């Protein structure tokens, strides 16, 4: 199972690829509003890259519930538990 720190570390790599910048600090409260260029397409990229990374599949309800990076980490942690 993936621990939260491991998930944050891996997500940081995914975010670095999606936004091509290494300086994003991922905090639980971070949302799309806080990051330039984080639109619905980037959101799907992050989701799909996470699905690839952990070999998981988000269902529609889970995707609807995502508001922040913290939410995303919780769902990933639950699915990899």
């Amino acid at each position: 199972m993936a621990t939260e720190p491991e998930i944050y570390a891996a997500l940081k790599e995914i975010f670095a690829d999606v936004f091509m910048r290494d300086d994003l600090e991922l905090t639980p409260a971070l949302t799309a509003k806080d990051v330039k260029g984080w639109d619905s397409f980037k959101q799907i990229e992050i989701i799909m890259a996470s699905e690839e990374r952990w070999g998981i599949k988000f269902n529609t309800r889970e995707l609807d519930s995502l508001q922040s990076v913290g939410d995303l980490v919780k769902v990933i942690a639950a699915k990899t538990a």
Partner: protein
Amino acid sequence: MTELHWLPTIADWRPRLRALGADPGKAVDPGKAWDEAVALANGRINFVLTNALDEASRRLFPTPPAGLATKPVRLAVLGSSTLTHLLPAIRVAGLRRGIWVEAYENDYGQYLQELSDPDSALYAFQPTAVLLAFDAHHLTAGVTAALDAAAADAQLTEIVAHVRETWTRARDAFKAPILQQAALPIHLPVLGSNEHRLPGSRVRFVARLNEALRAAAEADGVDILAVDERATRDGIARWHDAGLWHRSKQEVAPPAAPLYGDLVGRWMAAKQGRSFKCLVLDLDNTVWGGVIGDDGLEGIALGQGSALGEAYVAFQDYARELARRGIILAVCSKNDEANALEPFEKHPDMVLKRGDIASFVANWSNKADNIRAIAQELNIGIDSLVFVDDNPFERNLVRQELPMVAVPEVSDDPTSYPLALADAGYFEGLAVTEEDRERTAQYQGNRAREALKSATTDLEGYLRGLEMELIVRPFDRIGLQRIVQLINKSNQFNLTTKRYTEEDVLSVMADPDAFGLQLRLTDRFGDNGVIAIVIGRLQPDKDLTIDTWLMSCRVLGRQVEPTTLNLIAANAQRLGARRLVGEYIPTKKNGMVKEHYAKLGFTLMETTPEGGNRNILDLGTFTPAETFIHVVEG
């Protein structure tokens, strides 16, 4: 599988992209930046990295760079659902082929309105090519299990007529070639295995529609983008995600976008006559299993009787199928020519015959030079060659020296070779002509090799970058089996071809006046294993005789020979020797090392009537050669 698995992984891809994208204000050499962008597009990248590369390259090249050999493409992508996420992949697929692409997407669902309106943004875009990408929901609107056969047929006729109408409009408006995407088989069956008995089945309708579109495309001169066949090979779940469709109306899931884009890129390249034309094959462990020079005709894996032998037959069969539809075949092998030809002439299970090969190059020169020679002999562009080799060293050498040559990444399993060639779509063709079928014969007609300009290759730079380490160990019990195996198996690079048993090797280990060395070579691509064996024996007159010196041909041309000589000299001096004596004993197989000692600076003392020679090197005046290989005591 929708990965671009035939492209090599580039380890420093991310820093290179950042370097490319950095300091947009800074003056960069546009030619170099374009080449770097093309190189990055030729790495194995997923959809996220594809998008990142697209962003950088669009910033750098808002207009086509000057001096491109390819024609820029302005592609209108017209469809009924969300296609935005496919555009970066299409542009990057163009970039992969050196083609600058600008793409346009119609306002959501408005393709017909825009095609009908000369004041639309679509007209202002002035496309030079049009891709029609209708989603399968749009194309099956109104189709339901409640329809009877006549109603279903009428529906099919109507939708085909509608698609043809868009072709006509697009062609009238833009005088541009048209690519029609086949419908993706995304629907679920409602009857089951015998779905075909249900006239109004959407599954069935999509299959019939794709057949009908192909027939109409033939009549109207339109090309097809066969995502239906591709998705059947990959599994539709790799291409389509129902949840994503409901969320964002993306029919093609983003992870499949790079492959979708690549399929479009192949078409754009084929339209410009830039598909690859010639398949260049390595032989040992590529066309058959094993090394013909060492294993002999009976020893190579080829043909029925073993899974491995059958896999090589299957690859040869695929290559011959390519030849029969117009692809030129060539051979580029590190071998004595006579050895390389032997299976073609004598092995009963060879599918490929000498007559199928338009250019046959087997020698010991480096492969980049040989591939240049093949292009010259066949009088085709070097950028139309695809080179298949099981050996990662050779692949990377050719990629570095000749970046315009396509070199698919393959595993050491021969089943991966035809798969890589087919999935990469190098030979994308749009039509088949009689001329294609006769092509190999044509090329053979003028096989006479033109005089070659000797091309200068930056081999030194390549070797330096390899970070080679030669790990030297005296003979030991751990290595005993491998040492004995090499001594008894190596035929080609083997100066004396003396065969020894385990006991013989143990007695070398026990002899204070002898040494045995086993040499392992590693480089940044991995461990090549034990690749050379040396036995030296000190004579009473303080001459050190090189009793055995053998090496794997895989590592030829990498400075292992002079580095090994340095080690022999050091060991000889440790035993108190004053001179080295090197002997070449000729056999049927070892002609390649006849001049071995002369090349290393030995003085010829005598030749034998059989063609052998004895050579001397004075250790007092010997200076070790500088090489790019770092020697490590293992």
